[in-house]
């Protein structure tokens, strides 16, 4: 008894906040592309925020619930329906045994997160439930979900159990939803903030002007590993040799064709292309929600502004967690 996959859709994988501490061995961090949506999804069902959840990409994923369960859906709006009826996002939901949850097609954003109260019962590999497809480890048997897969859930936490019972008694309980707008933007054209990359000074002035003033389109050759952009070509003042070194989520590299690549959740641990910029952490969830053909404008901020933006985001998340714990209509709830 558990959750059965009727249709895997385009790509559905189990992700948590990633696999840390092993990058020096070349083991990638991985984890949710939009980590804040995953964290909020978990908080809404009484899980610890880093619990493994389902990352559903763009469309099609369809799940059958074999038992009553408490879940939450956050992230991009992929028009989720339960038994054919539109279902709200960003709030705890009670799903009845025999019900079918289906993600239709993305109308805003790119990835939805489904948290299950208690968490998905899969073994942690190297202390994480994140799926590392290339290495065939983690998540559900080291791969994306396929038709007829069945996964089980772990026991609900005290808070999860309380919510579950309350919703069973009173299905209209908790009529609010978490206000996601302070965490993630779901728009096709976005301004993404960056700090200067390690090799920023090596790019020619004209290229830097273009990078700052013209839009870059996310191409269809984009995935969890990286977003390949298309726009005004960016050139170095003069070619120079760069040795491979550490790179991270949001690092913007420029290979010799001049078209930038933004490294995403499944990036390699090291890279050897010059780095023009680094997307600030607070804007990574919004970037991760952009689809192919989305347009990005880049805006430079200081390192201090980048860190303050993240601290601010964290404060908002804390308010949300507190609000949920006390089940009151804090300002964060609509």
């Amino acid at each position, binding site marked *: 008894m558990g959750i059965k996959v009727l249709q895997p859709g385009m790509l559905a994988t189990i992700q948590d906040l990633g696999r*840390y*501490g*092993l*990058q*020096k*061995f*070349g*083991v*990638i961090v991985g984890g949710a592309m939009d980590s804040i949506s995953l964290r909020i999804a978990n908080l809404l069902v009484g899980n610890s925020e880093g619990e493994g959840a389902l990352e559903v990409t763009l469309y099609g994923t369809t799940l059958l619930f074999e038992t009553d369960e408490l879940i939450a859906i956050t992230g991009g709006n992929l028009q989720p329906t339960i038994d054919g009826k539109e279902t709200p996002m960003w709030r705890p939901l009670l799903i009845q045994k025999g019900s079918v949850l289906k993600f239709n097609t993305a109308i805003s954003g790119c990835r939805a997160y489904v948290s299950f109260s208690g968490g998905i019962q899969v073994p942690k*590999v*190297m202390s994480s439930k994140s799926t590392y497809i*290339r*290495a065939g*480890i983690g998540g559900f048997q080291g791969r994306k979900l396929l038709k007829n897969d069945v996964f089980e859930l772990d026991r609900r936490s005290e808070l999860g159990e309380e919510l579950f019972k309350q919703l069973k008694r009173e299905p209209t309980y908790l009529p609010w939803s978490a206000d996601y707008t302070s965490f993630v933007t779901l728009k096709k054209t976005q301004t993404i903030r960056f*700090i200067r990359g*390690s090799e920023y000074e090596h790019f020619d002035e004209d290229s830097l002007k273009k990078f700052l003033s013209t839009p870059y389109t996310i191409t269809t050759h984009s995935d969890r590993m990286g977003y390949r952009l298309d726009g005004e070509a960016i050139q170095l003042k003069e070619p120079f040799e760069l*040795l*491979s*070194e*550490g*790179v*991270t*989520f*949001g*690092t913007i590299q420029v290979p010799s064709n001049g078209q930038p690549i933004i490294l995403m959740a499944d990036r*390699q*641990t*090291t890279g050897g292309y010059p780095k023009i910029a*680094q997307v*600030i*952490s607070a804007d990574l969830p919004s970037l991760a929600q952009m689809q192919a053909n989305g347009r990005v404008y880049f805006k430079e901020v200081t*390192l*201090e502004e*980048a*860190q*303050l933006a*993240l*601290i601010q985001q*964290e404060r908002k998340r804390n308010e949300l967690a507190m609000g949920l714990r006390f089940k009151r209509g804090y300002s964060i709830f609509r």
Partner: protein
Amino acid sequence: MNLKENVQIRPLSDSALVIHVGDGISEAIHNKVKNILNLLESNPFEGFIEVVPAYNNVTVYYNPIEVYFSNIGKEGEMPYEKVKETILSLMNQSHIVETTKERVVKIPVVYGGEMGPDLEFVASYHGLTPNEVIKIHSSVEYLVYMIGFAPGFPFMGGMDKQIATPRKETPRLSIAPGSVGIAGNQTGIYPLETPGGWQIIGRTPSRLFLPEQSPPTLLQPGDRIQFVPISLEEYKSDWEMKTWA
């Protein structure tokens, strides 16, 4: 020498910084990198996540939120400044030492044939016989400077320039795990099946990525590697063997 000397620190992101220790590739710089790695791993500050060594620098990952609310550095400062000060003061109290003796890991390799389809090309490119290429490739010890690209993939130095060969013009769509290749003056071993443009001269039965073990890779930064030529028959019978070390 004080570990802090000639070191530069710069941000990589709002959650990571880079400690730059010198230019180029050398064993002296590598030793300094290892010193910094050991120092930070044995003295983790509040909010420390992990370190990633490269040829001449170390990337330090930290949680800026945790650092911000911690007692490290000066009160009220931004996380980057706090971490930078903490690392500099740690390094200031520390001297460069020769790090503990290196492990020598023997990697059995069957050269040529279907296991090393580009051996003939590499040989003819240099006007050598395949056996001469094998002899040159397996007669030196290679230092593992860093691991990257894929889990357990060693970036090694020390290959004889006599067998340095450019990458293939058209990369292969799939290279078998364990493949030993040459690209420019580098040699490497593919831990996972991946596409790639390296000239493949052989294959090892050793598994480089061991997700069920800790650490999860056969090789670690600072190891020395010795390739040992074996026959196809030995390869087949030793398939289960993890290492000859």
